[in-house]
């Protein structure tokens, strides 16, 4: 499985660390419901098919990315940068595509 890092280009998935379900939304700090927090921490759909997930390029530029991946076939449909440098990285993605990396 290869993931195209928005900074480094296409790399083996072993350079990345899986950081969890990107669809899980942390409850508001004002939300005191234990059930809501329990659901955020533990409850996952375990989707068989297309899934949005967070990965970190730990052995590379250490950028967080949202990967849309088929959990059955491992086909990767997209890989987008997230976080404070996302806009800067999005510009780099266009250059990487232009360079064929």
């Amino acid at each position, binding site marked *: 499985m290869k993931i195209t890092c928005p900074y480094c*280009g296409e*790399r083996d998935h072993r350079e990345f660390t899986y950081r969890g379900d990107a669809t899980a939304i942390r409850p508001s700090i004002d939300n005191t419901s234990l059930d809501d927090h329990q659901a955020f921490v533990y409850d996952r759909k375990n989707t068989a098919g297309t899934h949005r997930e967070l990965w970190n390029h730990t*052995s590379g*530029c250490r*950028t967080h990315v949202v990967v849309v991946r088929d959990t059955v076939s491992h086909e990767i449909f997209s890989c987008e940068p997230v976080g*404070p440098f996302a806009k*800067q990285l999005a510009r780099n993605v266009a250059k990487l595509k232009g360079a*064929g990396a």
Partner: protein
Amino acid sequence: MAEIPDRISPLDGLFEPGDFGAVTNSPGVEYSQRLCGALVQVQAWPGTTGKVEAVLKQVLGLPVPKARLAHMKDETILMSTGPGRWLVDDEMEGLEEKLRKALPSDLGALTGLTHARVVISVSGEKAEWVLSSGIAMDFHVNAFPGGGVQLGHHHEIGVTIHRLGANHFELYAFTSLAHGLWHWLTHAGAEVGYRVT
């Protein structure tokens, strides 16, 4: 600031000069090591990238490289290693203090890595072949041209690779893991013959 202790290579005692492996007329690859006079990581905060670039340009007298590239001047190398992040390698000591004076902490963070990395030079006709055998990245010159910088790993040993030319690379390896990387390089180079200088 406390006095900085003498630099000691983690490869001292292992780095034995000579020819090894399948050397016939000339070795396929040559290895050497060096310690940086100063190695500093610079990280801009979100929104301060432009200002940090201006400081680097002023202090180092080098244009700031774009993503995955390095610029060199005399004995200074400025490498782009991530979004808003650079690695500065200088043969002269004192670079960290110079940068700290020029770069206030509200613009970015400086991390001194002088004692945390050793640089292993890999050169020769088979250099690309040797590195490709253990580091999963595209070493073709179209994807990784001379003057390029890539970060990757060999079996969990993180390494920053600066390509100086078609057949010349410098690997910035963690000192604590340099033994493992060196062990692999000797095995990978044995098939084509390697020279340690």
